């Protein structure tokens, strides 16, 4: 049953697409396990309309998302197949000096147990190249936020204060010495580890305009530019999401950090890429 993780309420057409897609993905290689997400109307914490203080629901097209973040083991296979992404060879414009800094060498992980932990210390360029190699791309912020709004039972658990607190409690803890292996509990879509493990790159991280504390609300300098509608966060209680956006907005595409990994996404067949 290829669509085993798909909720029973899917529209018939999406189910069919998911089934087709899952068959096609079976050949994509070990670990490249994707799950199809149905499209839907979604209210982002970032305003999507013309009014900076109010959000307008947007339509998310159906897409497929990796069930787990890319692991160090998977990334090792990638740099072995694509030596130009080994840390000794990667051009400085594509990855900073901390790129894969925790590895023993360009082709050796920190320790044998690291292979099923999420890969971190990767730049946006490297993450994008990895997803290319899997016939995929990085998810957009909206796709990521849409998938991550779900808890184990609900597709949108964001209004639940307890769920918010649970997410927030990870965000405020210092980095653990060792990251946990991928494969936490699946959310309502069957996607794992969206919270509580690592930050994740998104394709359009550079377009995240954020001033969460409203210190720059209505600043005329900012409003001159494109994307000016997005300078504000609508739901000011979403500290957890806010912190993720703040982290992403602090980065350049060559930057890496010890807690930042990624996962890949794919368009479903029959939808624009």
């Amino acid at each position: 049953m290829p669509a085993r993780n798909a909720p029973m309420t899917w529209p018939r057409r999406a189910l069919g697409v998911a089934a087709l897609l899952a068959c096609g993905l079976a050949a994509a290689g070990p670990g490249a396990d994707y799950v199809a997400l149905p499209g839907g109307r979604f209210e982002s914490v970032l305003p999507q309309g013309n009014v900076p203080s109010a959000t307008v629901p947007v339509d998310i097209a159906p897409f497929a998302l990796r069930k787990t973040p890319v692991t160090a083991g998977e990334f090792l296979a990638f740099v072995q197949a694509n030596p130009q992404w080994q840390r000794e060879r990667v051009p400085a414009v594509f990855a900073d000096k901390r790129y894969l800094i925790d590895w023993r060498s360009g082709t050796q992980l920190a320790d044998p147990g690291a292979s099923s932990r999420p890969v971190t210390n990767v730049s946006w360029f490297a993450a994008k190249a990895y997803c290319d190699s899997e016939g995929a791309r990085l998810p957009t912020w909206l796709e990521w936020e849409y998938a991550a709004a779900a808890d184990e039972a609900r597709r949108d658990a964001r209004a639940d204060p307890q769920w918010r607190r649970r997410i927030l409690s990870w965000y405020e803890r210092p980095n653990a010495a060792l990251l946990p292996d991928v494969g936490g509990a699946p959310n309502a879509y069957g996607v794992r580890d969206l919270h509580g493990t690592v930050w994740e790159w998104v394709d359009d991280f550079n377009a995240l305009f954020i001033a969460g504390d409203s210190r720059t609300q209505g600043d005329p300098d900012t409003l001159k530019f494109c994307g000016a509608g997005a300078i504000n966060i609508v739901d000011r209680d979403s500290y957890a999401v806010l912190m993720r956006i703040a982290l992403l907005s602090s980065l350049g595409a060559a930057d890496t950090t010890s807690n930042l990994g990624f996962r890949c996404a794919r368009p479903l067949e029959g939808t624009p890429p």
Partner: protein
Amino acid sequence: MNIHVIAKALQRSALLVGLAAAMAAPPLAGAAGKAGPGDFGPPRGAPIRAVLTSPPHVPPPVARNYPAKVIVELEVVEKEMQISEGVNYTFWTFGGTVPGSFIRVRQGDTVEFHLKNHPGSKMPHNIDLHGVTGPGGGAASSFTAPGHESQFTFKALNEGIYVYHCATAPVGMHVANGMYGLILVEPPNGLPKVDHEYYVMQGDFYTTGKYREKGNQPFDMEKAIDERPTYVLFNGAEGALTGDKALKAKVNETVRLFIGNGGPNLVSSFHVIGAIFDEVRFEGGTNVQTNVQTTLIPAGGAAIAKFRTRVPGSYVMVDHSIFRAFNKGALAIMKVDGNEDKAIYSGKELDAVYLGDRAGPNLNAVTKATASSASGTLSLQDQIHAGEALFAGTCSVCHQANGAGLPGVFPPLAKSDYLNADPKRAMDVVLRGLTGKLKVNGADYDSVMPPMNQLNDDEVANILTYVLNSWGNVGGQISTEDVKKHRATAAPVAAAAH
């Protein structure tokens, strides 16, 4: 690629603009150069690495008469520390402490600021220094991802004491986790010399658990938004400035406190119990207020308070919104050692029973008896009236107002065979107490009467004269002289002898 770079640049500049007008101090009248107030021209000499100190310590005075280039390197570290005994909290720090490292420069200095975000950090951070003239106070220029470093440069145009803090979204949370500190911009000629300088900074903290609930306590977003702190603390932890860590000084020394308030929410009513600030540069500004009891320190503000220690002892610093001091931790202590100066403060001179309303109406009689005794005209009636008033306050609780005592517990004084057998012995009982088995009017007693040391000779004489002349007792008179004699010689009464 290009679009990304442009977008990023726009975003960074957009991030934290517009606050400077509200937060950075307006230019004060300072030493004016051609380039404007506080600008003494380009930096001279070799660049100087700033000395940073952890609280409660303050770097030494700048002691320099020219503007220099000063390099400040500050590292952001996210770490778990104790917020109270047995209670851990994840603090985000400038330099590993709460408040962050103290920075000291001279007005007119060019400060090259390096903000380093530790590779182990989970969060991006930045710094907004209220001593900076420019958008965001440096925040947009210092936005730094984990494992990275930012650099920006500013000229310290305005002298004074300024708060710095992190301004990364969500700002309130970064501040609530301890991301604030002080930067002192010394006037060109420095500050007057004092014996001690200390660094104290208040902050409010929000944990999901209650005050002093043990274990790891996470940040509570709702409490923070509602402005209901679990802790209000000086220097980031309960006990940070008490016990062995109390601030220290000797008598007749001058102490300068740099007091900041990081907030994020509360305003501080800063007060040192038992001291008066000789001078306060309130709000960190140039004006000096003198003879201040309590100074208001706004969130995101600071003050410089100076006072001279005169009397030894422990001086408790509090936020005088006083429940914060005793129920949320806002307590610090300055321990002053040295010789007493009784002319300024005596210590306790009297520890006496206060009769209150109970004897109030009749205390006139006591006053009259004291006066009569002094003038040698004390009559038996004076003594009885005074004794009645004093008896009501001191003795009637046990022996009862009618002298009947309580059967089996407190012996009677009315028609007391024990009393009337030897009235003089009653003086020894009052002065030395009486303990153990005793038979009075045929009933057995075995209890304790403590010595009534607090009564003076006059009072004992009057009480006993009143007792002897009441309730069918033998009568007679006990004089102050009698009591004085007995006080000098009497031994404890042995109950068993009777």
